[in-house]
């Protein structure tokens, strides 16, 4: 797995003196010690063992940034040319590690405490209590079940997006106009969409869609029954994100080799036949990428739900994210909410891994 694309090979003869090496190491260890000392000091101050200390942990953050800079600089000082190469990846890696790995470890700790921001006690470890509570929490399982429905809705979005991509790829006039228009929903913030569509167009008394339904003699009710409410959320989410899949599929269509399409036409394939036998199989890799990425985005679905239904009626539209959001917002239940989030993360990782495994096995098999 060492060769991925073109690799740039450089031969360098570095002659780094011992003094330089010592300087670099001293910088890294010196600043690391500073971070450790400040952190220990502050911890002692907060637990009341030392009288003087800082108001916040901000100085420790500054020391940490200093350490990160020293680490980057030391790469060049100690390793010379090789260090300069490391310097490309190191800043991003440090950034991600410090913003993801540390908070995740911290999250793991709080998820086993009974921390409630409203209570004055602070976090107290409570073992498996949160786990047991989760096991008996019908609303959480309900939210997970809803996520399944939401993810399944991706298949419909995929069909529509593929259709639109085919339309845009056909011989049409004003292609650029249609492309811009079809792209527009993706640009809109889900919060704005939830007002524009969810709260005004679907408003029961004055919304234009309600009016149309009443014209036809129906009685509009969009968020009253669980099924329709869920469908409405799916539709709004689909409206914003169909352009995303559409653009990816369109790019795939435009990259198809023209010769093969022409060959199939010369061989007398009808439109539907050439789609079924040629275009669709050739588009499979792009389709898989688009659908997987869309599912990943779908698993984060929350903004629209929070703003339109806040999970109602009776939790029928809740996604996991919106449920945990309310768990925190309404009940300040940090410990329990974090455990739910961690469990969700584990489930997502398992699900995506299985999905990718399945897809790669299925793709290898000849169609």
């Amino acid at each position, binding site marked *: 797995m060492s060769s991925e694309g073109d690799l*740039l090979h450089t031969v360098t003869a570095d002659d780094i003196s011992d003094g330089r090496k010592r300087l670099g190491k001293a910088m890294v260890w010196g600043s690391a010690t500073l971070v450790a000392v400040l952190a220990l000091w502050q911890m002692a101050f907060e637990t009341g063992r030392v009288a003087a200390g800082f108001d916040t942990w901000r100085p420790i953050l500054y020391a940490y940034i200093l350490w990160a800079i020293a680490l980057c600089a030391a790469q060049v000082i100690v390793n010379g040319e090789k260090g300069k190469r490391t310097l*490309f990846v190191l800043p991003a890696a440090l950034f991600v590690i410090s913003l993801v790995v540390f908070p995740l470890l911290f999250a793991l700790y709080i998820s086993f405490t009974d921390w409630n921001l409203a209570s004055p006690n602070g976090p107290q470890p409570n073992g498996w209590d949160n786990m047991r509570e989760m096991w008996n929490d019908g609303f959480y399982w309900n939210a997970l079940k809803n996520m399944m429905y939401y993810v399944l809705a991706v298949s419909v979005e995929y069909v529509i997006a593929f259709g639109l991509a085919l339309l845009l790829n056909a011989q049409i006039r004003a292609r650029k106009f249609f492309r811009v228009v079809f792209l527009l929903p993706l640009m809109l*913030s889900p919060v704005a969409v939830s007002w524009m569509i969810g709260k005004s167009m679907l408003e029961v008394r004055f919304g234009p869609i309600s009016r149309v339904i009443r014209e036809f003699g129906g009685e509009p009710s969009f968020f009253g029954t669980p099924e329709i409410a869920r469908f409405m959320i799916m539709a709004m989410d689909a409206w914003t994100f169909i352009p995303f899949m559409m653009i990816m599929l369109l*790019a795939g269509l435009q990259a198809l080799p023209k010769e093969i399409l022409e060959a199939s036409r010369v061989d007398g394939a009808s439109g539907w036949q050439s789609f079924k036998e040629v275009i669709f199989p050739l588009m499979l890799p792009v389709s898989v990428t688009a659908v997987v990425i869309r599912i990943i985005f779908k698993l*984060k679905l929350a903004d629209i739900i929070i*703003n339109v239904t806040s999970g109602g009626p009776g939790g029928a539209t809740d996604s996991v994210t919106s449920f945990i959001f309310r768990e925190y917002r309404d009940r300040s239940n940090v410990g329990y909410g974090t455990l739910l989030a961690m469990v969700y*993360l584990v489930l*997502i990782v398992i699900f995506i891994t299985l999905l990718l495994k399945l897809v790669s096995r299925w793709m290898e098999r000849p169609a």
Partner: protein
Amino acid sequence: MNAIFKDHEADSHERTKWWASRIAIYSALLIWTVICLFPIFWTITTSFKLAPDVMKGNLIPWVDFTPRWKGWESIGISPRLIGEISTVREEFLKRFWNSTIVALSASALAVVLGSLAAYGLSRFNYRFGFMRNSDISFFFLSQMILPPVVLALPFLVLYKSLALLDSRIGLILLYTLMVLPIVIWIMRDQFQGIPVELEEAALVDGLGIWGAFLQIVLPIALPGMVAAFILSLVLCWNEYFFAALLTATNATTLPVMVASQTGSQGINWWSMAALSSAAILPLVVVAIFLEKYIIKGMAAGAVK
């Protein structure tokens, strides 16, 4: 041989079929155009309506109703109020400004960090412990599946102790983290498309690897970087979840402001519509003028 001669009997059938397919294609296109544009049209026209217009369901400006500035006056933007001092406008502009700063800086930071990492990963062999290039790439890209809700609560506590709660810097850091995998994904694709011989030539001519990167590769990869930047901008501008949890008064962004007013529905539709229009207009303009880059960004990686 018949099909070649257009005036032949057997050809008229072909022509009706051609017309039928044309009509089908264009009507499908038009239907979807309406689906895409109507909510936007509705929001913008509603912002110029008065209460009776909303209740009567008037649709077309100047025909059904006379546009009024009432909705825009509620956020202090109208010809009448433009010269005066208005607290609502100040409030709105503050949110707008927050959104702009946060989105621009987060995208810029993500593009800088992401491009460097993507370039390194597409050109050099790394070994950090057990991790090789493909593992490092996977580590970066796997951040994409991390749901925001997992990070939200730890960050809330963390930011509280760092006094970063309700500050723009806090949001910028999180948003950078959020878009970084996407930027790396797009940029890695870009750099892999640039032939390595260019840098080899530059190295022979005496540039260092950083010199070759900055002077030779960067100008070529610029369109890709713009694409990544704009895509990040869209995501950051629209982000709601973190902003709702981590900001309270000083650093709230536009989506939070819109969301905080959606509760009051029914009576003041026009002000909500004006606020929503103002929140979406910048990106609509971006979409119209920079559509090429957005599509380029999203297409990257889709087609290998």
